[in-house]
């Protein structure tokens, strides 16, 4: 079990070292590794679930660790931890990884570095799996950074494109910034309690102030990695990477690592009410802002990117509202339908060679039956319509928020649901509009739909999206032993109505004309979300003025004072040397003068010394 990520690592090593040029073999190795891990995960799940069904309590976790780093003050362990939370995350990670790898065969066809892509995908899957099975916070941190590295490698996969390189750098630096807070939290925990193992968290006995501090610091890591406000700006730029990367990393797996951490370290967070409120606020603000930004994007991947940020906000606010279960269930369902949406977007992009929604519509997006159909399935799930999976997880979240008793918060979250439905169906309707007869391609291009390796995963994900929702009750029981309740119509009713309104608004805005932007899009106030709330500009200003200002100051000090003093020493020595060498003038009378002077002084000295 500890070596569950070994197949991926082996695949990565093999491909990087030997198979860069032998594409087909590289693909086969990578897919084989992914398949092996997926099958192992499935077996693990069936066994574990079988055991869990028989017992009323949640199963105790299985841990295995080795003492890895032994110091005088603390011992750090390396190993794995398996409980229902782990198994669920593993299902998500391995299933989506496998499907994405399958999809990439078709998507990256013709790309000269296709083998390198699969190597990086394998490395990422290895790191993500390692993160999921980590038994303590330190190991989580190690794998956390590794997935960050893989994200950098994969976003910047087409590194000769300057936007991609810049986006990769931005993602890595921003998440690193959040990770700084997380590392501080880890250090504080180790300092005060000497123990960072997850199984011990419940019995740590942290007092509220310390718990708040550590929670907020760990939450910094979540803000960075799971792209919450204000560190969310890297995720839309990360769309420069190939679409399978966006689906895998920035929808289903890496960005949810933060949410996973919240659930894993739940005892620490739940010990501090302040931290929970802060988490809720961050999640709610993120969800709302990102939803507004998603409403005005013309690039299909950016819509889903902002949607991901918004849904991550949902997951975070669900946790902040007190329900780790709702958060994880939303993670679970979201992974499937968001990956579906991204992969279908990729299919459209592959066909139309453009990311722009209008272009995709013009080039016959509507005719790609499987792609369009599965995208609609994903959009319905995203909007939270019964009986798709999105409805169930959103329902769980809304129930938790309602239980908080804050009407403003509930209204906020519900309104964000309205926006979610609006922007997801905006894309659906924009692509589905009637094409004018002379548009190239019209109904169904001569290419038809994408190849089976691309549409296959789409169909699997669509089935998962539809089916997973019904598992909610068992999910709750599996995760925490909680019983399944009936549908809460007081919550579900309003959310369904709002979603319906969103869809209606989208349909009304976009149903008729071909080129016209919708009514909402043309509102001047929409420029604010379009400009990403000027947050990127703010960061750029901070970087240029403050950070670079400090750098110039430091460079100045270094050049003038530090180098100056070193140079000054050498200059002084040289000056002294010059002065001394003037004594050696070559004129004998000078030497004689000096001699006579010396002897006189000596003589006088001896005379006086003898006399006294």
């Amino acid at each position, binding site marked *: 079990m500890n070596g569950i990520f070994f197949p991926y690592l082996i695949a990565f090593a093999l491909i990087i070292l030997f198979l860069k040029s032998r594409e087909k073999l590289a693909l086969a190795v990578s897919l084989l590794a992914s398949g092996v891990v997926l099958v192992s995960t499935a077996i693990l799940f069936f066994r574990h679930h079988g055991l869990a069904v028989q017992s009323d309590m949640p199963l105790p976790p299985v841990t295995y660790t080795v003492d890895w780093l032994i110091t005088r003050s603390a011992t750090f362990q390396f190993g794995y931890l398996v409980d229902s939370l782990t198994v669920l995350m593993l299902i998500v990670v391995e299933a989506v990884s496998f499907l994405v790898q399958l999809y990439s065969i078709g998507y990256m066809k013709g790309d000269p570095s296709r083998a390198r892509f699969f190597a990086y995908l394998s490395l990422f899957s290895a790191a993500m799996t390692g993160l999921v099975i980590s038994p303590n916070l330190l190991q989580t941190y190690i794998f956390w950074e590794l997935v960050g590295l893989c994200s950098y490698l994969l976003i910047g996969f087409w590194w000769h494109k300057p936007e991609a390189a810049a986006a990769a750098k931005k993602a890595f630096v921003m998440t690193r910034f959040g990770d700084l807070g997380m590392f501080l939290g880890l250090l504080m925990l180790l300092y005060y309690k000497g123990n960072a193992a997850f199984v011990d968290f419940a019995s740590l006995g942290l007092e509220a102030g310390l718990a708040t501090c550590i929670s907020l610091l760990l939450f910094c890591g979540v803000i960075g990695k799971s792209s919450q406000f204000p560190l969310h700006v890297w995720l839309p730029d990360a769309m420069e990477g190939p679409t399978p990367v966006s689906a895998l990393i920035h929808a289903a797996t890496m960005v949810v690592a933060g949410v996973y951490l919240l659930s894993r370290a739940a005892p620490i967070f739940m010990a501090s009410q302040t931290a929970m409120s802060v988490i809720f606020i961050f999640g709610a603000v993120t969800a709302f802002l990102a939803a507004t930004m998603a409403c005005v994007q013309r690039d299909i991947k950016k819509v889903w990117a902002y949607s991901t940020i918004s849904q991550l906000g949902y997951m975070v606010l669900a946790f902040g509202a007190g329900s780790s279960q709702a958060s994880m269930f939303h993670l679970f369902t979201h992974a499937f339908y968001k990956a579906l949406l991204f992969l279908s977007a990729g299919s459209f992009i592959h066909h139309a060679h453009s990311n722009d929604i209008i272009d995709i519509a013009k080039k016959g997006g509507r005719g790609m039956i499987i792609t369009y159909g599965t995208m609609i399935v994903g959009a319905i799930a995203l909007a939270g319509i019964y009986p798709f999976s999105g409805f169930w997880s959103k329902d769980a979240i809304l129930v938790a928020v309602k239980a908080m008793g804050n009407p403003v918060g509930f209204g906020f979250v519900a309104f964000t649901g309205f926006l979610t439905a609006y922007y997801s169906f905006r894309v659906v309707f924009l692509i589905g509009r009637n094409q004018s007869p002379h548009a190239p391609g019209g109904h169904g291009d001569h290419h038809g739909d994408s190849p089976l390796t691309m549409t296959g995963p789409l169909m699997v994900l669509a089935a998962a999206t539809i089916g997973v929702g019904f598992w909610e009750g068992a999910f709750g029981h599996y995760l925490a032993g909680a019983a399944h309740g009936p549908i809460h119509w007081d919550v579900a009713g309003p959310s369904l109505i709002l979603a319906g309104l969103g869809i209606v608004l989208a349909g009304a805005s976009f149903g008729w004309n071909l080129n016209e932007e919708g009514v909402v899009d043309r509102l001047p106030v929409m420029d604010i979300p379009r400009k990403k709330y000027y947050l990127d500009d703010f960061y750029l200003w901070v970087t240029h003025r403050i950070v670079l200002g400090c750098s110039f100051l430091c460079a100045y000090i270094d050049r003038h004072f530090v180098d100056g003093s070193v140079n000054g020493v050498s200059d002084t020595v040289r000056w002294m040397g010059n002065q001394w060498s003037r004594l050696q003038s070559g004129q004998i009378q000078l030497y*004689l003068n000096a001699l006579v002077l010396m002897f006189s002084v000596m003589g006088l000295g001896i005379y006086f010394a003898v006399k006294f």
Partner: protein
Amino acid sequence: MITLQEYLTVAALLFAVGLLIVLYRNNAISILMGVELMLNAANLNFVAFSRHLGDMGGQIFALFVIVAAAAEAAVAIAIIVLLYQNLGSVDVEKAHNLNG
């Protein structure tokens, strides 16, 4: 009678004058003359002490000094001639090639 101190004083004054000539005259031959003056001052010292102490050793040493001075003067003149041939002048201020 002329006391020993008076002889020694004269010798000291002669020595001082000779030293000043060596240190502050620019002409090489003047410097040579200063050196001779210093040597003779030393001779005077020797002879004065020899007469005062009744020991012939002082006068004998003075004779040796005279011989040495003569030999040295010859060599010095030779050097000055060569200096003049190479430098074009006997001004010691111009002879500063060994500077640093």
